[in-house]
């Protein structure tokens, strides 16, 4: 078994190509099926500040109430976690768990791993070259979590829910609404870079000897 580092296969149609020269900001598409083969990050050094900003917004979005409802002296408000808890109060455990996973747990894990990677990349920019421990596991978790982070869908749901309530009661928007909007934008920026490109950053440089088994 031997690695062929200058070749690349299309993930969607299995076409074989020679790895193109890295052009920053370029997206390379497969000639055969049109799928994206490679994406070269334009701005690697923005990943760390974007990740930190995302984490801050994540904290705000989850600690502040989404909205407060007031009808005739009665009032109620809720955060994301509060909503999940009120589901469990009525026995909808499976539903609550699913919402918690896709809007809280998975994005949080992704952000923490991203922080771990980007701190290392930042150190590497400052010429501290050393392999990143657990890079394999980190990359595998990032890959499998990618489809299941639904923050952006949740943000749209918040807007729909607000419009639904606005007609019938006094509704005061909480800071979490804006935090969710900001978080969606930040996350889409920070997660849009190619996961494969992390391997190009030579966190663990390709050594020909390492591939002979």
């Amino acid at each position: 078994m031997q690695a062929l580092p200058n070749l690349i296969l299309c993930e969607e149609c299995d076409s074989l190509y020679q790895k193109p020269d890295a052009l920053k900001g370029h997206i390379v598409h497969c000639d055969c099926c049109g799928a994206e083969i490679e994406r070269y990050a334009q701005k690697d050094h923005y990943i760390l500040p974007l990740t930190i900003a995302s984490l801050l917004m994540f904290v705000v979005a989850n600690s502040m109430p989404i909205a407060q409802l007031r009808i005739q002296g009665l009032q109620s408000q809720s955060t994301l976690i509060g909503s999940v808890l009120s589901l469990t109060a009525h026995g909808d455990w499976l539903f609550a768990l699913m919402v918690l996973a896709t809007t809280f747990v998975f994005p949080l894990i992704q952000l923490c791993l991203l922080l771990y990677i980007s701190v290392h990349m930042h150190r590497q920019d400052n010429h501290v070259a050393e392999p990143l421990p657990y890079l394999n596991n980190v990359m595998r978790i990032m890959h499998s979590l990618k489809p299941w982070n639904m923050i952006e869908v949740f943000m749209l749901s918040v807007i729909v829910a607000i419009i639904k309530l606005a007609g019938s009661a006094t509704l005061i928007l909480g800071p979490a609404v804006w935090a969710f909007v900001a978080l969606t934008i930040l996350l889409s920026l920070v997660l849009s870079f190619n996961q494969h490109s992390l391997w190009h950053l030579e966190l663990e440089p390709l050594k020909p000897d390492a591939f002979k088994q």
Partner: protein
Amino acid sequence: MQYSLPTNQPDAMTTNNSQHKTNISKAPTGISMGLIDCHICGTVWQGAKDGDQCGRCESRLYQRKPNHINRTWALLIASFLMYLPANLLPIMVTKSIIGIQNSTIMGGVLYFIASGEWALAIIIFAASFLVPLFKLITLTFLLILAQKRSTWRLKERAKLYRVIEAVGRWSMLDVFVVCILAGIVQLSNFSQVIAGPGVLAFAAVVILTMLATLSFDPRVTWDNANHQQDGKQ
């Protein structure tokens, strides 16, 4: 060891702004050259077998996703079964002083049409009704064509697959709306929103179709094309 592989030249690849060539090129494929790429780190391996570990990132290597046809069918049938209860059972129950009100997916759409919020009605109709239905039909269609080794409109089929891969998650919209409303509207006896039994079925449809899309291997579509082209020569 020396390896010389007939690969496409880099200029044959297109960057994002240029047009794709319409004819299907007879590019060498990984399977025909005996190469497997790692789906996590993208490294191309020669002489690797199914189930071997990638030497770089230690994930399992597979020429094609294991058992993809059976898995996709199983998940698809499961989501078809959940589709009816998802649309017929109430997803949200509103208890208020007026009484108990059940609302289904289409009830939510009709509510927004009645209150004149056309844009929202269209968003919810698309996300909750059209997208799941479109996904189920499209995936069934792609799967049957892949099984029949059809070479009909390969490029369009590849595009369809990418579309259903991208839009699937947006069906969770209504599920989250129910969750948010159940959190905010808790005014004891005056008005209270509780999740209905339909919401779990609906979420199951979304998650099962997402899993089905992930377990389908679009490379199989192209394998048939390459196979038939080889046969003609």
